[in-house]
């Protein structure tokens, strides 16, 4: 009895294996947790205290005194204090003149940024010449003051300056920062307030078709670098009172405007609060592009997958807003961010909706297939060639053996050679000037591929595989998602080289166990597949007719789920 029991107890090695299987995931878990905390919490925890202690001490004292420093109303003194602050800059100009009434005035502007026409025609002209007429016209009650030749701020604003954008600066600090951004300041003797006229007009780009997201059918409008243009484009989508845009200032040193746009009666308020909270927590001296914002507000820094969708297309943003998502626009970047994002969004193109649902569905399925190829084609090639010759049709096996006779490398090295050179080619193609780019692609793709085959470096089958992979990865509408897949493809190749198809499957499982866990602003990354929501499948792999898609995505937990209202 005892002996039979003992015979069923496995040997020591099994226990060791079991222990390893137990410990390895735990180690991985804790390492990733440690890395997560090391990478993820660092900017929000450490930097503020450091920054304050280091930078704020010299500046704070000055800022405080300056903040309270309001203008005296004495022309010379004020001008001198402004000059002292910014006259060192070569692009800041001071234009002093005498008004028709005899008072001294000065205009301070930044070259290239100020609205030249507005200032010359509307402001200076009316102050220097029309003044006599203007002051004579006013009715009797203001005559007293005009007799005193005292022009008040309100009088100026109401009667003399026919321009819409006019503000008053309260203190020196604010004035200076506004001047440097492009407003024109006007200082008039005897008036305490300094007026800010107009806003920056600098050279801008016209609205063009987005380069990174071309469509055959759909609006040919893309965002530009000017935030006000972008918000205007969004406003123009239709009469809609529920579109709300709130402004934030981000960047500790160079402040930039950032706009959060949403539909106030659709968006989930918790989501909105979370977006606001994360944007307010951004602590960075300067944000040149929305990519900075994306990386500073994302959930998981270690994930290879993007957790906000970037787009140049206003139509895409509006569609997302109507689904209950939130858009983030940063001044100076033509890329708007859409959060939360799901994996399927990265494989969707607005065209899916603009074309009829049957071709739209076909294209979507094609893209899912292309994603699979882009990720796994070389890995499958390696595992078939090196591990599973039995899974290839017999006649193909024969021709592969024939073709691979001269190849001196194992399939992994062979695939790495080709894949790496293709990736380099792509990278080079991006950098090259436009007329050379396509030619480079042809030279690289065809000639190098053919030469590599002839030289016996790689087999012709691999060239097919690599070509299919490259083409498939071009079919992915989002460039950022494409890069992610390119990276993961190499990992898949390594796992295939280690354990064949089994390794590829393990990699697939690993990837998906990560994806299942990943969340973008609280929304699971591969929903509606996990968690399973059948209603949302209408707009997932398939794109069902609009008559069927009556509701907004359930995963967004919107305030108003009915699309027909």
């Amino acid at each position, binding site marked *: 009895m005892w002996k039979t029991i003992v015979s069923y107890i496995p040997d020591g090695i099994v226990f060791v294996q079991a222990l390893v299987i137990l410990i390895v995931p735990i180690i991985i878990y804790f*390492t990733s947790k440690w890395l997560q905390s*090391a990478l993820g919490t660092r900017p929000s925890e450490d930097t503020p205290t450091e920054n304050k202690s280091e930078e704020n001490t010299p500046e704070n004292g000055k800022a405080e005194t300056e903040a309270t420093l309001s203008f005296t109303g004495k022309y010379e003194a004020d001008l001198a204090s402004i000059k002292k602050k910014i006259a060192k800059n070569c692009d800041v100009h001071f234009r002093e003149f005498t008004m028709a009434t005899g008072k001294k005035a000065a205009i301070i502007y930044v070259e290239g940024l100020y609205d030249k026409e507005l200032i010359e025609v509307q402001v200076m002209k009316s102050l220097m010449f029309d003044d006599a007429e203007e002051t004579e016209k006013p009715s009797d009650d203001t005559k007293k003051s005009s007799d005193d030749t005292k022009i008040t701020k309100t009088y100026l604003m109401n009667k003399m300056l026919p321009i819409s954008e006019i503000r008053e600066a309260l203190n020196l600090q604010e004035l200076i920062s506004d001047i440097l951004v492009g407003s024109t300041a006007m200082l008039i003797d005897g008036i305490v307030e300094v007026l800010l006229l107009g806003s920056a007009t600098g050279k801008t780009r016209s609205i063009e078709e987005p380069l990174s997201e071309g469509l055959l059918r759909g609006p040919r409008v893309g965002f530009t670098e000017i935030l006000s243009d972008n918000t205007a484009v969004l406003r123009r989508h239709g009469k809609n009172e529920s579109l709300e845009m709130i402004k934030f200032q981000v960047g500790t040193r160079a402040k930039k405007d950032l706009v959060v746009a949403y539909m106030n009666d659709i968006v989930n308020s918790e989501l909105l609060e979370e977006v606001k909270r994360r944007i307010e927590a951004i602590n960075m001296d300067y944000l040149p592009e929305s990519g900075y914002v994306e990386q500073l507000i994302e959930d998981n820094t270690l994930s290879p997958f993007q957790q906000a969708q970037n787009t140049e297309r206003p139509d895409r943003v509006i569609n997302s807003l109507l689904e209950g998502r939130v858009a983030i626009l940063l001044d100076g970047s033509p890329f708007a961010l859409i959060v939360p994002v799901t994996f399927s969004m990265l494989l969707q193109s607005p065209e899916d909706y603009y074309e009829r649902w049957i071709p739209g569905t076909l294209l979507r399925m094609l893209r899912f297939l292309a994603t699979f190829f882009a990720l796994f084609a070389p890995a499958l090639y390696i595992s078939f060639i090196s*591990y599973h*010759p039995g899974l*290839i049709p017999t006649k193909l096996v024969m021709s592969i*053996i024939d073709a691979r006779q001269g*190849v001196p490398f*194992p399939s992994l090295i062979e695939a790495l050679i080709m894949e790496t050179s293709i990736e380099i080619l792509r990278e080079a193609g991006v950098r090259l000037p436009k007329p050379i780019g396509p030619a480079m692609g042809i030279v690289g793709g065809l000639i190098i591929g053919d030469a590599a085959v002839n030289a016996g470096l790689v087999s012709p089958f691999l060239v097919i595989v690599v070509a299919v992979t490259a083409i498939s990865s071009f079919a992915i509408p989002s460039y950022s998602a494409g890069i992610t897949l390119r990276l993961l493809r190499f990992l898949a190749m*390594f796992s295939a080289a280690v354990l064949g198809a089994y390794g590829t499957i393990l990699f697939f499982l690993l990837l998906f166990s990560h994806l299942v866990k990943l969340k973008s602003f609280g929304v699971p990354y591969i929903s509606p597949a996990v968690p399973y929501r059948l209603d949302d499948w209408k707009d997932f792999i398939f794109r069902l007719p609009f008559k069927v898609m009556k509701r907004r995505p359930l995963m967004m937990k919107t305030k108003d789920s009915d699309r027909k209202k």
Partner: protein
Amino acid sequence: MDSMKRYFLFALSILFVLCLTGCWGNREIEDLSVNVGLALDVGEESELEQELAKEGDSYPKKNLITATLQTVPVLKGKSEKQSGSSKSSPMYLNTEETGDSIFQLYRQFSLRRYRPIIGHHLKVIVISSELSRKMDLNKLLKFISRDNDIRPSCLILISKEKASEALISSQSGDIPSFHLRSMVENQFRNNKILAPMILTKLDGIMNSGSSFILQNLVSAKGEVEFAGAGVIKGKINKWIGTLNEHEVEGLNWIRGEIEGGVIKTYDKSGEVLAYEIKSAKTKIKTKVQGNDISFHVSIESDGRLIENWDTSQVPTDDKFLKEAEGYFEEELKEMLHKTIHKIQEVYHVDVGGFNNKLRIQHPKVWKKVKKEWDETFSQSDITYDVKLNITDYGSSTK
């Protein structure tokens, strides 16, 4: 700074781990040769083997079996590749090994060829009738059916002469194993071809102990032909004789495995008449009365009158068609009669699938008789009726 160092070390260790995972345990496809065919003959060392043995190649064995392994592809030099297919060098390589254990024979192969063989793509196994007369088929195929690599879809054939001859082709560019495997698919054109007997099917049949037939091969001058079938008696799993093409045809009718083909006969003036089978249906009814078991086979078929040499007859004539149907039915009945006679009287085996019908229709009776079924079957009464319909006569009435 300290944490930077830690990150660096971590990244470095990941890099090392990646480097560690080199390529081990794999085998590149170009270093393998693909085993596509296997021929099993009675053990007889070839001249080459005898010479090799003289030189010192010997290990303890009984020369019971000679296995011929067909492997592809044959590697060609670059110059030969460019000269193209004008040269008639064979596309396959046959290697003969003599010994007893088939597994050992497979492994002996590695002593002679540097590229190890893989069994995934094994297409056909040809067994010579002489070997299968001497040896239990179950023993011969034990390794084949146990091996993990070899696919269950592998085809089993019997050869009248030496099995290794079936794996030789005189046509250049032809690989005999593929040739044989594809020829089985011609069943829709010719009813003398049996439904393919694949490894799993055979395994089941051998375990059940029932008799079966395997497609027979004859070869001459490098040409191989399907000719009839070899009969294997279930109890002993050994070859006991052959059925000729005509009987195979009849058996196919009985088994209801007709997918197409022809019935040819002669009319009263001796002119050829041919019937193209479009569809065929066979029903076997089992009757049990006491200890007597009898079967009734009814065959129905639709087809086309495709050839009649008697030009005076016009196929639009209904009377003529009826008459022709009569001839064909006669011919078919004759065929069935001969076939049933052969299996019942000569070989005493049930290879027509009657056992299955009995098992389904009278399971209790089947349980009683299943042990001595071949004998019981030989005693049972088989009747048949045949109904052929000529539905049309093609696109010409002349």
